[in-house]
Every structure is written in C-alpha cells, then in structure tokens.
C-alpha cells in the first residue's frame, strides 16, 4: 500500500528528501504545538515565567544546548574529518610501492607521515612509467626533512599535478631548486640544507654540504603537502651520495626518463592514467609479488567504513546522553512548574480554561527546549570549528566545519520527542488542586 509513497520518495532529489525528512521529524512538535496553543495567547505569561527564574531557566537551556551540541558536534566533526582526509588524498589516483601495508603507505606517501618502507627499483619504476595509458609516473622519495617540513624528492610534473599553477616563483630547473608548500615558513631565495630523517630522528649535520634554494611556492592544497618541500628526486639521491638516475655524462639532467641501473630507488610512485578506467588495469598490472598498487581513495573509504562503526557507537552515546538530558529536563520541568504552582492556580481561579493553563506550561517547556536546541546547534558548530582548527593545525589536513542535514535531523527528532514528552509536566501541573496551591 505504501509502495507508491516510496516510489515518489525515491524519485525526489536528495536535498528535497533531506528537507522533507527534517519537516517530517519536526512535524509532531508543530502539530502538538498547534493543538495545544490554538486560540490562546500564552506568550506573555511564558515570558514572565522565563524572567521569573531566569538563571534556572538559563541553566536548563544551557544543559539542553550542551547535549544537543555534543550530538551535532559528533556528526559534523566526523563528516569534516572524512571529507578533509578524502580531499587531501584527491590528487593521488594510484600509488605503486613495494609490497607491504597499504595503510602504512597511504599515511607515508599521501599524508607524509614518516615511516621506513622498502624501495622500488629503477626497472620497476621504468616498467610503470612506460606502461600503456600512464600519463604521469612520479617518484615520491620521502625521508628527508628541513626543520619540521618533510623534503620530498619528485619531478616537476608532480608539482604541476599538485598545484595547477604555482602561487609564486617557478618550477625546479636545476637539482638544487626547491618548491615549497603553501605553509612552509621559507621565502623565495632562501637557502637551506636538508637533514636525513624526519622530526626527532633527523640528523642535521648529515647533508650539511648540500644546499637547496627556494624557487617557487605551491598553491594551498589543504593537505600535509602544504608543509612539504618538493625537490628534484635527483637531488635526494645525490644528497645521500647515490647515483642520480642519469648517465654520469648527463648528470645535470632533471626529470624522467631515468636509467634503471643509475636509479637508487623510490619508496613510492604516484601514477595517473590518461583515462579513469585505465587506473584499474594499471592496478592489476602492478599488483605482483614485487610491487603493490592501490587506490588511496579506496583504502581511505575502507578506513572511513571502520570509522563509520565508531561513529555509530558515538551516535548511540550521543542519543543516550540526550535521552538522559531529556529525562532530567522533564523532571526539572515538573519541579519548575511547581515553583509556578501558585501562579498557575491563580490562573485557574480567575477562570482560565484548563487548556489555557496547559498551553502556558507546555509553551514554557517548549521555549526552553527550542532555545536549547537552537543554541545547541551553535554550540556544536562552534566546537566543531574549534576542533577542526586544531586538527588542521596539527595534521595540515584542511578540515572544514559545516552544518549538514544529519545534524538538523537529529535536532528535529530531539525537539519533537522532548516537546511531545513535555505534555507530561503540563498534565502533572494541571492535576494539582487549585485551592491548595492558591493557599500556597
């Protein structure tokens, strides 16, 4: 019987479904409100009640706001992290490396988290670079650093792949040129010596004889690459006293092709196919005993899937907190309405219909719940914004906070449930004897 409804529903655009669901979730609250308030004007009294115990009322609103904020924040934060990490991995279509853990390699090659991994040989690199449909095969030779910035050896094409246009300066032309990420604290023309290793393990004196010069700066990418220094891969090899990928009589050359026998190795290669579909063929081609090929996006998706379970646990926790807060708020409302018992008895003594008194109590409760919920959205977003900034600062993965439909749905459901439950304190207040309350 409901089939036609579902068919219409499925035919709607997603945004319309979300908006409709929001309205549907809020509908019980609105309907109950209309039924209770219709024909009366309780707001003057509600305002008086709000003022009467304003600190208690504010405390209630704050309590609701915090609980709603936790729910909103959890959902918004999780989405922000998911989108941020996905955006940061966006440019990495296919990564080929020596066999090992895809996740380790994802963290090392895409998010530039330091890690020791085996290398691909020159023959393997050339096999990748010369494979059919390969548009770009860039070595990603990480392992060195300057201060806290990772120094990554690669090719000029990779730089152009990461940043369509440089924000400043030019690409590298000689081995000592370096292009820096948007947030690296160096200026064009600065010179520096790389250290072997990264962070605490860095050995500053190791490469003191080698000096890079900053010649360009990339656009912001919203990824850890904003803190990275990109240099010609040849330089990384030379710094370590290794051959530089080219014949000794052609040592000044920069970029591919590389001679397999002069190629000291690279931990990872970023591969980009000419056509999207070709990525799949390339992945199976390089999934061998000696090489591992994976889509960072897919690895990330499965990581997110794992996070999805965590998220579910967290949402259950958020809902449980909200149920507890709801119960607390309802109990509090029963007590608060007792504080108003004499005033409410007065209304009934003056001849107010029961439904009017009911509407006053219910509206009062609903104002508390409604303002708490709205404030909760603000609290949740503010918390998400703050946490996102911290995460962005720590990881250089740009995490944006935003308000999405799932949060709004949660809040709408919360408001509807509590507002309907708020009928109970109203009933309880009405069941009190008028004269007893009047005598005070």
């Amino acid at each position, binding site marked *: 019987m409901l089939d036609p409804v579902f068919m219409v529903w499925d035919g709607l655009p997603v945004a319309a479904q979300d908006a409709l669901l929001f309205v549907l979730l809020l509908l019980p609250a609105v309907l109950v409100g209309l039924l209770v308030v219709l*024909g*009366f*004007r*309780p707001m*003057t*009294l509600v*305002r*008086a009640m709000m*003022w*009467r115990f304003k600190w208690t009322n504010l405390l209630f609103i704050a309590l609701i706001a915090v609980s709603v904020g936790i729910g909103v924040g959890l959902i918004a934060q999780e989405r922000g992290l998911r989108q941020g990490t996905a955006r940061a991995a966006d440019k990495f279509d296919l990564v080929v490396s020596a066999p090992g853990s895809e996740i380790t390699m994802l963290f090392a090659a895409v998010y530039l988290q330091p890690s020791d991994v085996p290398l691909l040989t020159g023959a393997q690199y050339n096999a990748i670079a010369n494979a059919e449909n390969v548009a770009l095969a860039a070595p990603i030779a990480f392992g060195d650093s300057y201060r806290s910035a990772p120094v990554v050896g690669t090719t000029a094409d990779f730089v152009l792949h990461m940043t369509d246009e440089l924000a400043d300066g030019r690409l590298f032309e000689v081995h000592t040129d370096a292009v820096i990420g948007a947030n690296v604290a160096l200026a064009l023309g600065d010179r520096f010596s790389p250290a072997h290793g990264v962070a605490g393990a860095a050995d500053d004196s190791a490469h003191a004889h080698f000096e890079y010069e900053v010649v360009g700066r990339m656009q912001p990418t919203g990824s850890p690459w904003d803190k990275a220094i990109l240099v010609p891969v040849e330089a990384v090899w030379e710094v370590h006293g290794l051959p530089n990928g080219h014949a000794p009589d052609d040592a000044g050359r920069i970029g591919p092709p590389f001679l397999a026998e002069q190629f000291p190795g690279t931990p990872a290669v970023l591969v980009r196919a000419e056509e999207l579909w070709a990525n799949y063929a390339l992945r199976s081609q390089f999934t061998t005993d000696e090489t591992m090929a994976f889509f960072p996006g897919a690895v990330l998706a499965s990581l997110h899937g794992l996070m999805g379970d965590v998220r579910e646990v967290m949402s259950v926790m958020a809902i449980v907190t909200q149920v507890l807060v709801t119960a607390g708020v309802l109990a509090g409302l029963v007590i608060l309405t007792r504080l108003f018992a*004499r*005033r409410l008895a*007065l*209304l*009934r*003594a*003056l*001849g*107010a*219909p*029961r439904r*009017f008194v009911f509407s006053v109590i219910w509206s009062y409760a609903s104002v508390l719940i409604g303002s708490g919920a709205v404030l909760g959205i603000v609290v949740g977003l503010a918390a998400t914004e703050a946490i996102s900034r911290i995460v962005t600062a720590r990881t250089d993965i740009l995490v944006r906070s935003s308000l999405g439909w799932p949060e709004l749905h949660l809040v709408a459901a919360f408001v509807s449930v509590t507002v309907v439950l708020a009928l109970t304190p109203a009933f309880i207040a009405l069941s009190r*004897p*008028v*004269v007893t309350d*009047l*005598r*005070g």
Partner: protein
Amino acid sequence: MGLALAISGLAVSGRDSRTLLAVPDLEVAPGSCVAVKGPSGAGKSTFLFACAGLAGTASGSIVWGDTDILALGIQKRAAFRRSAIGLVFQDFLLFEELSALANAALPGAFAPAGAQKAMRLRAASVLERLGIAPLGARTVESFSGGERQRVAIARALASDPDVILADEPTASLDRKAADALVDDLVRLARTDGKTLVAVSHDSAVHERADRVIEIIDGQIASDTTYA
C-alpha cells in the same frame, strides 16, 4: 448590575472529610457590600473559595443570580468565574515580571479573541481610576503593596464581573495604605453596582460594609445589616 447570592444547605468538607463550613441558609442582595469576619481558621477563606466554585468537596447549592455553581462541571464553573467573578487575594498574586497593565489585562489572555481588546481598555481605565498609570513600562516588582493590590483589583474588574470576592485585601498593607485601598475598593464596587464579598478582620472594611457576617468554627455566628 451585581448578582444576588443564595446559599442553602452548603457543607464544605476537607480532605479528611471533616466539615470545614456549614451554611444552611444565606441570602445576599445584588449590589451589596458584605464583610466576613471571624477568628483565624474559622473557615472564612473556605467560604469565599466555595462562593467562587473552588471548594473541593461541597454539597448543597450556591446560586449566583440563577446559576447554581455547585451544579456546574469544572469547565463551566471556570467559565462562570471568568465572566461573573473577580477575585482579589491577600498577597496580590501578580506576575512580578509584567507591567501593571499586562497584569490587569491578564484575563484577556484566555478570553475570546473579540473580548480581549475591551478587557485591556477596561483594565487600563480601572487602573487610571485607581491612580496607577496604565501605560507605565515598569514591572510590578517595584510597586508598593498598595499599588500592587490596586493592580490586582483592576485585574479582578477587567472582565467587568458582577461579583467581587476579596480575601483579606488589606492584610499585607500598612494602616494608611489599607484605608485608602478599602475606600477605593468599596467606591468602585458601589459606583459600578457590583456585589462585593470581602473577608477581612480589618475594621475599616467592616465600617464601610452594608453587612457584616461573622464565621466561627465553620458556622455563621452573627449576621448584622447596617442601614
């Protein structure tokens, strides 16, 4: 014009089914000013609440005009109070956070849409007659006791009821304020022809009443009418 009151066979009992008040027979002429006195705990408030149809368990009949309020259900009693009875209490029972006019026009909040404006105007005019600026934005929190009780009287009169029931209207006021208030209350009731029943141990009230009823131990002990 005020309503006549005719009580017969009234018995009000408390929660423990003890009889708190027994009034076999009482008639009050429309438009008269009746004071009710008696010792503490005698049943005066019980009497007044019963007259307003607020007694929990009461038998007999309390007839205002031709309406026996004891025969009405809860909702109809409320409706009757709404239109015919104005109540004034010892401690005013105002909404402290509202202005004088908002308090006085309070019954308008649950009156039919058409009557709200008239009630507001009426409340404003009564406030004016009692010397309180109706348009003042001040909340009644800052009002003196006498001013508060005047606001309460304006609230009782906002719906232009035929009856005013007052329970110790001067008990929270000092002597001077009490005298002024009694003057105002009685004057308003008389000029508008309302029936006024005021429970009070204040002799200023007794002096201005047409009739003083004394209740002792839940019984009418004396009933004096002045010319």
